[in-house]
C-alpha cells in the first residue's frame, strides 16, 4: 500500500503539488516511484522554463521503464532539486520529501481541478 500525504493536491498522472502561497512544489507520488522501481535518472527543466498543466516537463527513468512527468499546474520554474538530479534514488526513499521542481503558479484556479488526497488514494491502489 503506497503512501498518500494529506493536504497535497494530486494529478491523475501521479504527480503531487504542494501549494505555499503563489509557489507550487511538484514531485511524483509514492505510488509512481513504487511502480517504476529503482530510479536511475531524472530529467528536470532549467530555471526560467515555462511549464504547462498536463504537459510534459521532464522524465524519470528506471532500469526497465521511463515515465514522462506532466505538470499538475502551469507556471515558471524557479528552482529544480539538484539533490534529486544527483541521486535519483532519493525519490524511492521518500517521494514526498524529495520534490522535483518549484514553480511560480500562473493560474491558481487550476489547483481546483486536481485530486484531493482521498480521491488520489482511491485511484492509486
Amino acid at each position, binding site marked *: 500500500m503506497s503512501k498518500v500525504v494529506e493536504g497535497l493536491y494530486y494529478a491523475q498522472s501521479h504527480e503531487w503539488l504542494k501549494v505555499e502561497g503563489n509557489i507550487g512544489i511538484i514531485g511524483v507520488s509514492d505510488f509512481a516511484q513504487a511502480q517504476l522501481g529503482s530510479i536511475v*535518472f531524472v*530529467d528536470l527543466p532549467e530555471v526560467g522554463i515555462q511549464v504547462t498543466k498536463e504537459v510534459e516537463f521532464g522524465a524519470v*527513468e*528506471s*532500469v*526497465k*521503464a*521511463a515515465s*514522462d512527468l506532466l505538470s499538475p499546474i502551469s507556471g515558471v520554474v524557479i528552482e529544480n532539486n539538484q539533490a534529486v538530479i544527483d541521486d535519483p534514488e532519493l525519490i524511492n526513499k521518500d517521494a514526498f520529501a524529495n520534490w522535483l521542481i518549484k514553480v511560480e503558479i500562473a493560474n491558481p484556479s487550476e489547483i481546483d481541478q486536481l485530486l484531493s488526497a482521498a480521491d488520489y488514494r482511491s485511484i492509486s491502489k
Partner: protein
Amino acid sequence: MFKYFPHTENDLFAMKAKIGIRNTADLFRDIPENVAFRRDYDIPSAMSEIELRKHLEALAAENKTPIVFSGMGAYDHYNPAIIAQLVNREEFLTAYTPYQPEVAQGTLQYIFEFQSMVAMLSGMEVANASMYDGATATAEAMFMGLAIAKRNKFLVSATVSPFVLDVIKTYAHFRGVEIVMVPMKDGVIDRDELLALIGDDIAGLIVQKPNFYGIIEDYTGIADQLHAKKAILIENNDISTLAVLKTPSDDGADIACGDCQSLGMPLAFGGPYLGYMATKKAYARKLPGRIVGQSFDKNGKRAYVLTLQAREQHIRREKANSNICSNQSLMALYATIYLALMGPDGLKEVNEMAYSGAHYLYDELLKTGKFFVAFEQPFLKEFVVKTSLPPDLIRHALDEAGMFAAVVIDETASGMQMLLNFAVTEKRTKKEIDCLVAVLGGLSC
C-alpha cells in the same frame, strides 16, 4: 525428409496426438478459406548442396573482382585472416541480441570493447554498440541533434558525400526537418556563407572529414560559432583515418559518426558495413541504439549488461528517439578484432602507406598531362582530379586492365571537365599504381 526438418512420420503422429488434432489443417482453421494458400510457390525446385554451390559459384564468377583504386565510402583495406575465422564462431554468429546477459558475456564484452575503441579513435566520451552504416548513422545523429537543440533546421556542408546526403535528406523529408546546404569553395566549406547561415533557429551543422573529395578540411572555430548559437556540430569520419587525423573531439564536435567499413570489413558490394556514433557523456541518454555498461553480478564478479535501455523503442515506443533494434553487432566484432590486431602502430602504418601511395599516384597522374589539379587542398588516401578524357574511354580501358578507378563524381556545367575519384589503400603496390598510370597515360581522345 528434408535435411533441415527433423520430423519423422512417427514424430508427427505422436505430436498430433498430443495436440489433439488429426490433421494439421486444424491448426490453421483461423485462416479464411479465400486467402488460404493452396498451391506451390512459383520458385525453383530444391537444390542439393552440390547444385547450390555450382549455381552460386557461377553467379560469383559473373562478378569481376578488379584491383580497386576508388573509395567514396567503401575502401579496399586488408582484412586479416583471423577476423573471418573468429567472427564465424557460432557462439558469436548465431546468438541474438544479448538480452540474457548471463549467457551473452561474450557479445556484451566485445561491444564494450568496441565502444571503448570508438571513443579512443574519435576522442569522444561515449559510443553506442553500432548503427547500420555511416549514412544512416549520420541521419540518426541529425535526429539526436534535433533532440539536443530542440530546433528543427539543419545545415549540411556541400562537401558531404552525396550517398550520405541523400539518406539525410530522405530521413529529414519524412520527419519534417528543414535541410539547408552550405555551399563549398575550393573543395571545402565556404566559411563566409556558413557564418551567415548560423542563426538562432539552427539545430546544428553536419560536416565530413576527410570530405567527399578526400580533402582534410580545417574545421577550427566552427564549433565555437555553432555553440554560441546553442547549435551543435556533427562530424562524419571514415573511422580508420582517425588513427592519424585530428579527431572530431579536437574539432569541438558534439557528435561523431560515420562508417567503420575501413576496419577489416570486405567491400562486399556495400554491405554489411558498420555505422558508429559517439558523443559527449552529457548526451549519452540521447544516443540511439544499444549501449553496454559495466556492472557486477551478485557475487561481485565484473560483468557487462545492456544499459540505459529506457531510451529505446521497446520501452519508449513512439517517444523513442530512434526505432533501431537489430544493428550490426557482428560487424562491431569485425572492427574490434581488427583494431586489437593492428594496435596503435598498425593503424598508423596503414594510413601512412595509403598516404604515400595516394600522393605518389596523384603526382604520377598529373605528370601524364591528361589529369589536372582540381583543388589545391591536403588529402590523405583519397583525392579527385580533373580530366578531359571521355569517361567511357577510361572505364573501358581500366576494365580491360582489371582495374576499377576514376569514378566520375562531378561533371561541371561546361561539360568539358569532370572530376574523377581515386583512392589508395595499404593493399596497393607501387607496381599496381605504375600499371594504372600507364593505362591512363596511354589514353587519348
